[in-house]
């Protein structure tokens, strides 16, 4: 056992992927054979992932772990096999050609896919958390393990957006902030669970494609709409069965008798008065404080938002339904002789409408979009004239995919893309201790276009030659909802 004092020597890094904490010398792998020291960077050397279209239809994404035994010996069909960049490695510094530049013939067209893993210092994730509960004030810091990793951004329809990562958290703060940010982004991108706390707000446990857990409460469903929208949707079903309905919502609480939908049906004035700021007829803002009670407010007793009914307009035995935007909370009242609401059991004729609100709520999920900038030096691995690649992507000659999944390219300069991590093979992301994330990225274009933009033509290999190294590959099925990355239809040719 070498003493700690002699280590680490130059060129040796210590891997922290597991508690063995191997010292790994340059060019070697650790005890697991999965993490290696590449030019002083810790990289993952998982077998290369090959998307196999032949196995697609209806089959869920299944990594073939026993790679050497699962290989069925079938001949490679160019059009049905796509090499992803997952596990491809990188050729940092990027002036060297990308690790794999693969040619394949698809429906008579020669295509080239440049396959590389990018090291992204400029990257982050956008989280959409389906909840009406108040997660925290806008702009407040989002923390993981106590370190700031992002902030609360806009409230959107039925959901709260968080923006995590970005170069400032990765490299601009303390060492620990960078490390925790990197770990948080990595776990979220690999669809793992992460706990986040928001300053002056909630603690959430989130994972891509799973229901969010807000302050230990699992969010089951998204609301059907805002309070006002709910009135609009269900007004007809309530008409005649109840005299007034309040749909409690932290953003826009709706009141049936005042709302345009009620007016059109001829619902009579009820003399109802509620807290909050009236926006337009039957629509109220700020009826209470935000919280985790009814409809994202802090109330547990709905009567607290009511002011006394107007005498002369309201009448004894007036029937009032109060319900939240998810139908999870509801209460039914009738006015007594002093026009005070008294809670009664929900009449059976109203049960159905409350149930229908619930049925119309979609399952609440957290969704994770990875966002990264591929407009930097990794372009040199593709072409000797990097801006040509940017233009080619912008002009739709080159299709960009991330582990075979479609990406959205932001308009404007650079190649800044977003990808839904649930469309990618699992564990597609890695990291380097810089800290930065390692994400797969593939550029697919016609061979003639690749030559025209100054591609590394000398390094183009055929798909079938690459498939001979099948012991280093892992085959996975492509997800049925993803467009096939090699479909030649989308990338137009400049020659056309």
């Amino acid at each position, binding site marked *: *056992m*070498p003493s700690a004092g002699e*280590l*680490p*020597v130059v060129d*040796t890094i210590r891997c*922290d*992927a*597991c*508690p*063995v*904490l*191997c*010292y*790994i*010398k340059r060019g*070697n792998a*650790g*005890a*697991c*054979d999965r993490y290696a020291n590449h030019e002083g960077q810790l990289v993952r050397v998982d077998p290369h992932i090959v998307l196999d279209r032949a196995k697609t239809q209806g089959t869920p994404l*299944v*990594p*073939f*772990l*026993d790679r*050497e*035994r*699962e290989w069925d010996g079938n001949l490679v069909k160019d059009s049905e096999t796509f090499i992803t960049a997952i596990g491809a490695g990188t050729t940092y510094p990027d002036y060297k050609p990308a690790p794999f530049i693969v040619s394949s013939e698809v429906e008579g067209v020669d295509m080239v896919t440049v396959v590389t893993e990018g090291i992204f210092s400029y990257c982050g994730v956008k989280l959409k958390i389906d909840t009406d509960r108040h997660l925290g004030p806008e702009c407040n810091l989002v923390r993981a393990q106590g370190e700031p990793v992002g902030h609360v951004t806009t409230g959107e329809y039925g959901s709260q957006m968080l923006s995590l990562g970005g170069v400032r958290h990765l490299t601009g703060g303390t060492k620990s902030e960078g*490390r925790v940010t*990197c*770990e948080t982004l*990595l776990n979220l991108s690999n669809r*793992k669970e992460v706990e986040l706390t928001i300053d002056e707000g909630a603690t959430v446990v989130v994972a891509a494609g799973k229901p969010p857990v807000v302050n230990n409460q699992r969010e089951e469903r998204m609301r059907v709409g805002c309070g006002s929208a709910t009135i609009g949707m269900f007004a007809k079903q309530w008409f005649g069965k109840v005299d007034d309905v309040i749909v409690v919502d932290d953003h826009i609480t709706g009141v049936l008798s005042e709302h345009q939908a009620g007016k059109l049906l001829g619902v009579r004035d009820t003399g109802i008065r509620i807290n909050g700021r009236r926006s337009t007829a039957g629509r109220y803002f700020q009826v209470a404080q935000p919280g985790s009670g009814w409809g994202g407010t802090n109330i547990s007793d709905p009567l607290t938002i009511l002011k006394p009914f107007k005498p002369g307009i309201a009448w004894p035995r007036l029937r009032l339904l109060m319900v939240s935007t998810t139908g999870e909370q509801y209460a039914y009242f009738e006015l007594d002789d002093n026009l005070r609401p008294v809670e009664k059991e929900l009449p059976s004729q109203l049960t159905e409408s409350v149930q229908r609100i619930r049925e119309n709520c979609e399952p609440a999920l957290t969704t994770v979009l990875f966002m990264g900038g591929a407009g930097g030096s990794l372009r040199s691995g593709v072409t000797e004239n990097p801006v040509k690649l940017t233009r080619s992507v912008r002009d739709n000659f080159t299709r960009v995919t991330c582990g075979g999944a479609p990406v959205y390219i932001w308009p404007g300069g650079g190649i800044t893309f977003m990808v839904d991590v649930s469309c990618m093979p699992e564990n597609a992301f890695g*990291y380097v201790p810089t800290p930065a994330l390692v994400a797969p990225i593939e550029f697919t274009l016609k061979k003639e276009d690749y030559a025209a933009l100054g591609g590394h033509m000398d390094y183009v290999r055929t798909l079938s030659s690459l498939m001979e190294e*099948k*012991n280093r590959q892992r085959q996975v099925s492509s997800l049925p909802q993803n467009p096939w990355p090699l479909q030649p239809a989308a990338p137009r040719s400049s020659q056309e």
Partner: protein
Amino acid sequence: MRQPPIIRMLPDQRRLHLHDGPIDLIVEAFGSRAEIRTAYEAAARRFLTILDELCAELPLLRSPAGTNGVTPRGVVARRMADAVGPFAAQHFITPMAAVAGAVAEEILGAMTTAANLSRAYVNNGGDIALHLAAGESFQIGMIERPDRPSLFGSIKLHASQPTRGIATSGWRGRSFSLGIADAVTVLAERAAMADAAATIIANEVDLPNHPAIVRVPAREIAPDNDLGERLVTRAVGELTPGEIVQALHSGVVVARQLLSRGLIYAVAFRLQGQSRVEPQALRMMTLIHHPDAESVGSVLHV
């Protein structure tokens, strides 16, 4: 950063895959559906902490067995130390030589304690712990390099035989070897013992100072390896048939000692296309001869 263990079913929905750091297990249990489920749950539960337990005493497990009089605390670590103990007087060996087999044994034990199974195996990268209820048997295949899965031999194991552990060692494998065998496969009562014995025997299959053999101090490749400055085999050039026989003979000498001490039950050797089995009269190991056979990487269940 610490990556969490992976616990999941393989796509065949039969086998369980457990992975954590350098540990990678393929597990299969046979029995009623409910018992299999119970067994897999027990395996997964046990697996969660096993790597952390080992890493807590890693420096001790990496030092030569029997030199410092300290007994490891962990149950798996103790099993490793016990397995290498019988070799410590005559050979350089550290408890790490038995880590794969000991882990396989521990997970198998968790399953058979929790559930009533007819058969089960835990395959830790070729080091395998087996369970066989009365009357049951396993057919085991010995394969060429894992990337070229072609059988060079097979083993039929019955419950009436005492073998419950199989392990393979060789310079092509994931762990370093001091010898030149492509593979040495050992049958023993327990997987940890098979693992330690395969390491010892494979180290002895050697041609000292042969110019066609490339050796490098272990530390130059893996700075924290338990072999330290010892020379490990990195490449073996083509050997003459006479040299192959000579190298195998050195291994056979040690193998016979271990057989006579009752530590192991059988050994299969593989070196540059030549195979050999000890004891020679053994019926349960069958060799298949391939003219172009290359080398053996590991053992798998078929």
